[in-house]
């Protein structure tokens, strides 16, 4: 971050003299804070897409409703289209027949996007050690946070959300821009 700060200060130095005088000393903060500002916004307005295929989805309904209230973690606005969601919650068993569908849902989500694998089945296939079940959804999509449990308690969802928020706060928007991740396009 220090390099970005210095670069910004350098370009400002070539601007009009009045501008430089008016903001002298403060202009260096701007680029440093973009990450903090964007990460604050992203981590506190997660729009989840609930991909519920089994009993973890039922447990999630309880976690999301008034008693446990996921709205306190600013993750209450459920989207039922991947186009407007940025958090994919995979709750339940994923079979090989289901796998291309899940992959396509993930591809349809716009960057930035995160994935939480909820419960034993999504994390590892659970006790379905057989010919038809995917042993963990990280074979298909990249996963940010795993929640253990069969199904997990509402506290599990809350902890996962808080962990994800911490992870988002560590990300750098400027770094992602440099790598071109913000305009990554998937085909398929």
């Amino acid at each position: 971050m220090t390099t970005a700060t210095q670069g910004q200060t350098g370009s400002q130095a070539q601007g009009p003299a009045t501008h430089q005088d008016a903001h002298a000393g403060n202009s260096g903060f701007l680029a440093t804070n973009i990450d903090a500002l964007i990460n604050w916004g992203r981590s506190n307005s997660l729009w989840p897409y609930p991909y519920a295929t089994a009993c973890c989805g039922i447990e999630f309904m309880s976690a999301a409703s008034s008693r446990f209230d996921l709205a306190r973690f600013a993750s209450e606005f459920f989207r039922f289209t991947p186009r407007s969601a940025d958090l994919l919650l995979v709750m339940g068993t994923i079979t090989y027949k289901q796998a291309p569908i899940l992959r396509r849902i993930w591809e349809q989500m716009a960057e930035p996007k995160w994935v939480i694998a909820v419960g034993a089945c999504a994390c590892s296939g659970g006790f379905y050690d057989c010919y038809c079940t995917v042993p963990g959804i990280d074979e298909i999509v990249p996963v940010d946070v795993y929640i253990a449990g069969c199904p997990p308690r509402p506290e599990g969802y809350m902890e996962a959300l808080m962990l994800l928020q911490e992870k988002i706060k560590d990300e750098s928007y400027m770094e992602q821009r440099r790598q071109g991740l913000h305009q990554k396009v998937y085909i398929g």
Partner: protein
Amino acid sequence: MSHDQIQNLGPWAEAAVPASLSDRKEAQNRLFPILAEKFGATLDPLDRWGLTAVVAKERLRETIFFLRDDPQWSFEVLVDITAVDYLQWPGHEGARFAVVYNLRSQSHVAHRMRVKVWADEEDLDVPSIHDIWKIANWQERETWDQYGIRFVGHPNLKRLLNHHEFVGHPLRKDYPAQRRQKLSMNDPMVDQLEARLRTLGYQLLDSVPESSPMVEDVLKGGR
């Protein structure tokens, strides 16, 4: 339950009283000689409850018709069709597979039975009964999918549970239970969509290509 209480139940009184085990056993004892005489059925020694009749493949359909339509028996419900793989069964000789039809009666309380047909590995053809019960269509597709039994006369014998790129039949004893098979793309099921549209009275002018339109368009630069 007293007699008066049963009277108060009205038309459902008979159904509310469970048939005793001896009643059921007595009914079975009357049924199996009839099946043996008419269709050459035998009692399956592997079934310890004595509820399974084994018939030859060729006589399966008439047996099923008789069991469903005869007012004395009227097994109206086909609960399930499945198969058994006797590959490693201790002391088993003869055909490897058995197709099992589970039947149940609605009008005679708690009357149930099974019909069993042997199918050898060299000759996996078994007559289809999809026209006798509609649900048999999907149950036969499942049995084909999991065991590889071919149902002759079935209109659409495709896999039901496993995906369309799956090779082999996973519930056979010689299929390794943990051999996983990946699917590259979902079955678009265009043939079933077109058939459905035709039954609804639509006329199809051009057939849809059986590939992902998204991939093709993006690659060709269209849309």
